[in-house]
């Protein structure tokens, strides 16, 4: 059984601040949580490495401020990372660290290979475009030109995420949070991305909408075999979605394993506390 990861992440680093003689050298660095007590530089993500395999859902759990979202934004090129390597197993990107590519090439990856669903729909949707317009925009960016095809696919996607078509021309700002989240998912799926990032997609949704979003994500995995990274602070969500998970604390990975193992036999002190706190 020899599998190639579709996404390989090695030693990601992201710091906010200049750093100083006490913290720039990782060998001597003594951080308080994730910041340097001398200069206040925050090491939001440090030494984060993992592999994502085709068709799998990888869970990322951790408290707020642990670096989960920063890591995801770095992978999606929303923010610039200080260091690290990311490899995507696609023929035209073979053995290239995608973090070092030109902004044009990064845009290509965002348009053709990555999909992103943000915690806040404002980040992922244009609130003044119609819902169908939001999806069309993404498809046009990914090279679609045939209006008929774009319309047909947008409608099919909106139906998949249970948005009534009679409301497809409405602006998402009229929608509830759950509906906005589902329009975002439809938009992220429109270019058939092999890799999808989901940042706290169910946070703040009521339980009933949460159940439909979870079911939708599972269905996407089952039918489209998309590889996903699901970031959440909610262990119950991770348990439902992810086969494997990593636990982050203060910008680093403190534990990784099969999700049920992390929940039933947590190794790290922090993970044990997290599991004891589970409702």
């Amino acid at each position, binding site marked *: *059984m020899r*599998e190639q990861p579709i996404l390989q992440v090695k030693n990601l680093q992201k710091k906010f601040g200049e750093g100083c003689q006490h913290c720039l050298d990782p060998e001597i660095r003594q951080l308080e949580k994730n910041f340097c007590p001398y200069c206040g530089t925050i090491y939001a993500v440090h030494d984060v490495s993992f592999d994502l*395999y085709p068709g*799998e859902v990888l869970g990322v759990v951790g408290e707020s401020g642990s670096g989960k979202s920063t890591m995801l934004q770095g992978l999606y090129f929303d923010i610039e990372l200080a260091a690290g390597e990311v490899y995507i197993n696609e023929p035209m990107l073979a053995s290239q660290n995608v973090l070092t590519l030109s902004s044009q090439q990064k845009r290509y990856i965002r348009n053709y290979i990555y999909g992103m669903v943000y915690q806040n729909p404002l980040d992922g949707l244009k609130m003044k475009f119609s819902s169908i317009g939001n999806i069309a925009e993404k498809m046009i960016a990914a090279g679609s030109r045939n209006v008929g095809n774009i319309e047909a696919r947008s409608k099919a996607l909106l139906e998949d995420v249970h948005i009534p078509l009679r409301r497809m021309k409405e602006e998402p700002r009229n929608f509830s949070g759950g509906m906005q989240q589902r329009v975002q998912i439809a938009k992220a799926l429109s270019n058939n991305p092999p890799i999808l990032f989901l940042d706290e997609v169910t946070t703040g949704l009521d*339980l*009933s909408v*949460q*159940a*439909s979003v*979870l*079911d939708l994500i*599972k269905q996407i995995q*089952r039918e489209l075999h998309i590889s996903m990274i699901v970031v959440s602070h909610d262990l119950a969500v991770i*348990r*439902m979605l992810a*086969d*494997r998970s990593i636990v982050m604390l203060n910008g680093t990975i403190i534990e*990784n*394993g*099969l999700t*049920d*193992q992390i929940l*039933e*036999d947590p*190794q*790290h*002190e922090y993970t*044990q*506390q997290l599991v004891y706190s589970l409702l």
Partner: protein
Amino acid sequence: MTMLEIKGFGKSFTIHHLNKTIPAVSPMDLTVEAGEFVGIVGKSGSGKSTILKSIYRTYLPYSGEIHYHSAQLGKIDLTQATERQMLYLRKNEIGYVSQFLNVMPRTTCRQLVQNALLEMGESKESAKSEAEAALKHFEMDPELWDSYPKTFSGGEKLRLNIAMATVKKPRLLLLDEPTASLDHQSKIKVREMIEKLKSQGTTLVGIFHDIEFMEGLCDKVFDMKDGKIALPLEGVVHEG
């Protein structure tokens, strides 16, 4: 052929807030031949479930070896297997049934069984008919097929759990107290299911409170005491 060979396996849990390491199972050996049905009995807290969960990697290995003879991966030490290998085996070869049902919310009983098959790559049509056959076999009232298991009784939840695991036809099935809290009629169903799986060649390792119920069906029965395994128990083992 030996399906499972456990050598010197032991397990302890480190509890950080108590600053303590608690031993759960002392080093033990256990061998399961292909096609056998092995029962494990013992008081609660004696470490029975710990063995099953360690085979399935719900618990991390601590010491010793667990050799499993995989159809696809050959002989493999499960304590050394990668996460991806374990996921492969869980999907295709090793099943686990617990007393607790932990499933996607607001998914019907029928969908849950179908999804188990779809995840293995079966077509929608065959998943549908196999799921129905499994639900029929476990005498799930057809009125329940399209309802959500949240409101099911304990027995119904357990039967759904067993249906979800057995429908994938695992080579090795781990049963963690599959008859706990079941009524007499449902226990008979579980026994029939075990008989059927056994006749199809499935290897089974099960934990039972009421091993009498499996009388004549087990090939070996082990008694766990204080995290140690005693020698095979006589009496309930089937003859020949």
